[in-house]
């Protein structure tokens, strides 16, 4: 008993539902559109929201890039790529600029995205107010009434207690001056890339069954007070040990021989590209 598989895994009805939800998400920036959320062959919590969006988007001519915490070669990124590739036959790439669809967990690539690209972010917890209010029914009311005092209060309490805001990744943003949105656990460093983006940004939470979006050229501000500005992770004076990059998000490593702390680009494909440009400059293009 063998079964023929569908293109892009899902039956067409499932894709239609995801597509309709995505269109609404684009029309109401930052609003979490509920959707049925089908099971896919990877675990809930392992990028199923992103994967469902990717599968609803992808066509024969697309080129896909998948990254997990900045890396194209992370096992889960590879696993997602393998699944999409085996059900669609599309090409995959590591190179950010060559991709038409980029599915990512917790990073936005360092290379600026373009109009021709769509980035799909995997979201574990789409509700930015969940830590303040556990009930979905109530958080929906807060969004409806544009009551974000809880979110502000939480930041204020951090300042009172620690003298500064202590959010890490997933620092809440306000989209199109209306909805407070969880940007997914991207580092604060990446929040600015959401603002007035050239590329369409789609966010999918499979387990929590929500799709939301930031259309291109849309205002996205990180929640902050006038006198306590929003601060990104600080890598001042630190450079990548491989390519020497500054002003990128760095991973912290301990050199096993010297026992010293070293830094390396978190975006592995960006680092690789820089290294290759360097060698081309040094030795000239190979023919």
């Amino acid at each position, binding site marked *: 008993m063998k079964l023929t598989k569908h293109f892009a895994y899902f039956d067409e009805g499932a894709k239609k539902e995801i597509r309709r939800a995505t269109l609404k998400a684009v029309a109401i920036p930052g609003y979490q559109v509920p959707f049925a959320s089908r099971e896919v062959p990877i675990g*809930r919590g392992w990028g199923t929201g992103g994967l469902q969006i990717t599968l609803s988007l992808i066509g024969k001519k697309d080129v896909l890039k998948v990254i997990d915490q*900045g890396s194209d*070669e992370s096992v*889960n990124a590879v696993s997602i790529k*393998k699944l999409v590739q085996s059900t669609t036959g599309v090409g995959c790439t590591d190179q950010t600029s060559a991709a038409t669809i980029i599915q990512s967990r917790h990073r936005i690539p360092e290379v600026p995205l373009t109009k021709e690209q769509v980035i799909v972010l995997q979201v574990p917890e789409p509700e930015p107010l969940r830590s303040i209010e556990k009930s979905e029914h109530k958080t929906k009311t807060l969004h409806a009434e544009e009551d974000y005092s809880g979110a502000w209060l939480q930041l204020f309490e951090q300042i009172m207690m620690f003298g*500064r805001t202590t959010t*890490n990744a997933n620092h809440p943003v306000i989209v199109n001056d209306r909805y407070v949105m969880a940007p997914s656990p991207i580092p604060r460093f990446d929040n600015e890339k959401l603002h007035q983006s050239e590329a369409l940004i789609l966010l999918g939470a499979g387990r929590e069954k929500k799709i939301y979006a930031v259309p291109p050229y849309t205002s996205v501000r990180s929640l902050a007070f006038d006198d306590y500005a929003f601060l990104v992770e600080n890598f001042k004076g630190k450079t990548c040990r491989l390519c020497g990059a500054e002003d990128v998000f760095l991973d912290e490593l301990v050199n096993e021989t010297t026992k010293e702390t070293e830094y390396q680009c978190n975006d592995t494909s960006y680092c690789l590209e820089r290294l290759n440009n360097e060698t081309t400059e040094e030795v000239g293009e190979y023919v």
Partner: protein
Amino acid sequence: MAYVAVKGGTKAIEASLNLLNYERIKAGKIIEVETIMTTMRSLVDQVMSESSLYSPFLAALAIKQAEGSMEEAVFLLRAHRSTMPRLYHSEVIDTKDMFMERRISASFKDIPGGQVLGATTDYKHRLLDFDLVDESFIENEKWLNTFKEALPVIENEKQLIHYPKVVSYLRAEGLFPTYELNNKNPIDITKENIQFPIERSARLQILTRGQTGAVTSLGYASLRGYGAIHPTVGEVRYGKVPIHVHVPTETSTDIEDQYYIGEINLTEVESFVPITAKDKDGVDELQFEIGYGACFGKNETKAIAMSILDQCLEHPEVAFPTHDEEYVLLHIDTVESTGFISHLKLPHYVTFQSKLDAIRNVKKEKASDEAN
């Protein structure tokens, strides 16, 4: 020479999958799907129930592939389910027409139609049966023949007996309120996102496909003290029910125009729960309500626990977590809970780096405050 990405991830996955397959087949034994389907019926039923996909063959295949892991087997079937187009809805099943194999009531000894014990482990002493170690086909064959010979001969009955529901007997006596039939189309939570407060049809669907252990635990918690429902099992029935579909382009509602597509095994539970309600004069009076449970296959414990939780969620005003629909319904799905728990195995390097940064900054601030 250009730098190339280290393809560590791809290689690691490949090696891991090979190792997994090696572990599965290294002992040199093969279990047939057919064997699982016929000898592990309870496991097959549980998997079908949690997957909300009725197919004993596919469930057995999933069990084989998952090496007996419940969460993996359910996951496989759920994922398979989402590739299937869903074109029709079945017609309403009336369990009065169930082809009964078992039916008991804990409320009345003499229920109309009688109690039918059927096949159950309830009264089997749970002693390990070492004879099964050397079970033989010949012995089994012999046993079967003796068993069949001993069965009483039944003349072909002209008419099928329908077993009435226990509740209909009590309803006739006025002990249960009579409700108007709710013929609203049920919500399908696999095609439509749920919104809280949730409709009962959606709630029952989530409960019936809930993880057996989770549904049982929460039902138990409610019964033990973290809930305000004290049910009596009015009726547990188990048997086969036919499924019909109606083609939407045909407007006729004649049952003869419906298509019979097969039958399923079903466990159905109606729990009787005493509640206080206001009568028409506004005076408190005691009456019964029904907690409802229904599961694919033989899943009695789960169906009873489901009937408790159904009734708990009918009374959200009670301040126990088992009466909170978000608490109960959002946490009992096996694919969701096992998926999210296990996602903690994924790398969290970036998020951790961000956390480190936040903590270091606070420490730095504190140090400079103290220095000043």
